[in-house]
C-alpha cells in the first residue's frame, strides 16, 4: 500500500534497508547513534544495528570524513552524516581533494564509494554559518555527485541509490523538508521489491505547457506552490521540473521541457554567483536558443549571507510570489 510518511522517515527507511542489504554499510556522524540523530533521521538505527554499524563521531568532520574515505577504499560503504552540510567546509580538503581525485590520480585503480549526507538549507534562523547551500560548489568538482531530493519518495529512493553508487555522492537534504509527508510505496508493491530512484534522472513534478520552472531540493516545493498560483490566478500552466541531482544533470529532461514550453526560470536556494541556474541557463542558451520565446531567468537566494532575523531571512529565499511575478514578466 502506498503510505504517507515524512521525508525523515523515508530517509531512515532507505538507510535501514541498505544496512540490511550490505554488511559493509555503516553510518558515522555526530549524534547519529545514542542521541538518535540531531534531526532524528537515524532514530532507532543504533538500537537495531548496534555499535559496529552506527557510530557516534566526535566533532571532527575532517577527521571522520577523511577516515570514511580511507575505509571506503577498502570496500566499506560509509554513510557520513553532517549535522549541517555547512560543516562540510571544515572537511573541505577531504571532500574535494581526497574523495574526488583519488580515482583520477590513481589512473582508475581506486574508487571511493562514500556518501556524505545532511541538511543543506537556509530559512531556519540559524545564521549564516549554518545555512550554506553548497550544491553548486561540490558539483563544480568532477568526480563528485550531488543529489538533492525534494520529497519523501525521492529521499528514500535516492539515498538507496547513493549508497550503492561506487562514486562519492554528496546528498543534500533540508531541515525544512524533514517533517513534510509524501507518498512512498511499500516494497511489496514495487517491481523488484525495493524503491531505487536512479541518480541523474530528473522528474516532471507538474506537467505544464507555458513555462518551465527548473528547481531542486526545497525550491521544488516553492515552485509547485507558485505553479498553482499561476494556474489559478493567471491561467499560466507551468511545468515544474525537479532536477533531483545536480551532477549528474539530466540535460535531456531540461531541454525536452524547454522545447515544449519555450520559457524557463531556474529557481534555487543557492546563491546567484555561479549557481546551478547559471550553469543550466547557459546550457539552454546554447542548445535551445531557437526554442526560447523569452530570456531564461534565474531566481536564487539573495546574494548576502543568511540573515538571522526571522522575517528578514524569509525574504532572502525564493518564494512563490517572487516566482509568479518573474513568470508574469516573461509570459
Amino acid at each position, binding site marked *: 500500500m502506498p503510505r504517507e510518511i515524512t521525508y525523515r522517515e523515508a530517509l531512515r527507511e532507505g538507510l535501514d534497508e541498505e544496512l540490511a542489504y550490505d554488511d*559493509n554499510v*555503516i553510518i558515522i556522524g555526530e549524534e547519529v547513534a545514542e542521541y538518535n540523530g540531531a534531526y532524528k533521521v537515524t532514530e532507532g538505527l543504533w538500537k537495531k544495528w548496534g555499535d*559496529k554499524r552506527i*557510530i557516534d*563521531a*566526535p566533532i*571532527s568532520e*575532517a*577527521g*571522520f*570524513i*577523511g*577516515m*570514511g*574515505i*580511507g*575505509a*571506503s*577504499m*577498502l*570496500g*566499506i560503504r560509509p554513510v557520513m552524516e553532517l549535522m549541517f552540510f555547512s560543516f562540510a567546509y571544515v572537511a573541505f*580538503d*577531504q571532500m574535494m*581533494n*581526497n574523495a574526488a581525485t*583519488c*580515482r*583520477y*590520480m*590513481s*589512473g*582508475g*585503480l*581506486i*574508487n571511493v*564509494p562514500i556518501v556524505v549526507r545532511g541538511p543543506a538549507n537556509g530559512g531556519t534562523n540559524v545564521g549564516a554559518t549554518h545555512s550554506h547551500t553548497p550544491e553548486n560548489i561540490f558539483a563544480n568538482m*568532477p*568526480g563528485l*555527485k550531488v543529489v538533492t531530493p525534494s520529497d519523501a519518495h525521492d529521499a528514500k529512493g535516492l539515498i538507496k*541509490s547513493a549508497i550503492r*553508487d*561506487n*562514486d562519492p555522492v554528496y546528498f543534500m537534504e533540508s531541515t525544512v523538508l524533514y517533517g513534510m509527508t509524501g507518498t512512498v510505496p511499500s516494497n511489496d508493491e514495487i517491481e523488484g521489491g525495493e524503491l531505487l530512484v*536512479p*541518480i*541523474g*534522472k*530528473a522528474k516532471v513534478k507538474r506537467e505544464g505547457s507555458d513555462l518551465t520552472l527548473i528547481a531542486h531540493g526545497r525550491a521544488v516545493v516553492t515552485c509547485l506552490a507558485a505553479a498553482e498560483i499561476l494556474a489559478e490566478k493567471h491561467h499560466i500552466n507551468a511545468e515544474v521540473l525537479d532536477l533531483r*541531482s545536480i*551532477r*549528474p*544533470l*539530466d*540535460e535531456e529532461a531540461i531541454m525536452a521541457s524547454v522545447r515544449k514550453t519555450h520559457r524557463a526560470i531556474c529557481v534555487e536556494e543557492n546563491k546567484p554567483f555561479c549557481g546551478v541556474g547559471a*550553469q543550466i541557463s547557459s546550457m539552454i542558451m546554447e542548445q535551445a536558443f531557437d526554442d526560447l520565446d523569452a530570456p531564461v531567468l534565474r531566481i536564487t537566494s539573495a546574494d548576502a549571507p543568511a540573515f538571522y532575523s526571522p522575517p528578514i531571512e524569509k525574504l532572502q529565499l525564493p518564494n512563490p510570489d517572487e516566482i509568479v511575478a518573474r513568470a508574469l514578466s516573461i509570459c
Partner: protein
Amino acid sequence: MASKTANQSTVPFADAPINQSLTAADKIELLRQMIRIRRFEQTSLKHYHNGSIGGFLHLYIGQESVAVGSISLLGEHDHVITAYRDHGHALAVGMGMNECMAELFGKATGCSKGKGGSMHYFAPDKNYWGGHGIVGGQTPLGAGLAFGVKYKGLKGCCLCYLGDGAINQGAFHEALNLASLWSLPVIYIIENNGYSMGTSQARSSAFPKEGLAARAEGYNMDWDKIDGVSLYEIRAGVQKAVERAHEHCRPTIIEILTYRHKGHSVADANAEKYRTKEEIQEYMNKHDPIEFWKNTLIAEGVISEDDYKTINKEAGAEADAAAEFAIKSPYPDESEIFDDIYWEVDNNTEAGRSGRHFFHG
C-alpha cells in the same frame, strides 16, 4: 635529524628477534631495495634537469631506510599510505621502476597512466594507497584504512607516513583522536628530516622535550622515537608498533629521525640556505643509511665491498632501463581525459549512463 654516525654499532637492535630472523639474503635484499630507491631517484633527477619531467620532484634520498625498514615488516593485511615524497615507499612495497619512472615522465605506461605524477603513486594490489599531495591530508585516510581492516575482522594495520611539517595540520590531530578513541590499528610514522620545507623544526613546531611523537600522550597513545640511520633500529622499533596494532588493535606514533640530502623538492632554490652546506655534508658523509647498512653488512661478513658495487651497478642499470622505458613510452591519449573520474561511467553502468556527468565550457 639523525644522531648516529655511520660506523657506530646498533647491536642491541640487531639482537631483536625480528632482526635475528633475517637471513643473509634478507639483509642483502634490504640493502638492494635502498640502493634501488636511491638510483631510481638519482636517475629521475637527471631527467628532471633535462626537462623530461614536469612539476615537482620530492626526493627521498637520505631517508630510504625509513620506508624500506618499516615496510619490510608488513604482511598480507597491512597497508601503506604516505604523502608526496612517495617514490621510496612505492618501490619498497614492490612497485616496478618502469611504471614509477614512466609516471614521472607523464607517460601512459605510468602507474597512474600519467594522471598522478610524482606525488600520486598508487598500487592498491600491493596495499599501497598513495601518494597524497596535501600535507597531512592522508592522515585521516590512514585511520580509515585501519578502520577497514578492523571492521573486516582482519589482523592487520596501516602504516601512515607523514613529514615533520605535517604534524601541525588539524586533520592529523583529528585522525589521532579518532585512532585512539576508536582503537584503530594505525601507525603514524613521522619521518622527521628536520625541515618543514624551508622552516626548521625549531621554527615550526611546539612539542615536548622528548620529541614530536610525544604529543601522542595527549591522545592516550603509545609512541616511540627511532634513529632512522639503522635498519635494525627501525625494524625493531616499528615491529613493536605492528605487534601492538595486530595484537591489541592500538595505534602508535613513531618519530623516525632522518635527513633529506636534497631540497624539499628539486624546485627548492633555498635548499642550501636554510641549512648550511656543512650540515648537509655532515649527514651525507656520516649518517647516510645506505652507507651505514653497507658497513653493517660488511662488518657482519654478509657482503663484500665488491658485492655492494655489483648491487649498486645493477640498480643503476635498472634505473637507466626504466628511464629508457619511460622515454620510449607514449604519452596518454587526449581521449583519456574523461576516463577514471567516475567508476560508474568507466564501467558503463546504468548509473554511469544517467544524466550528464561532464560539462563543457
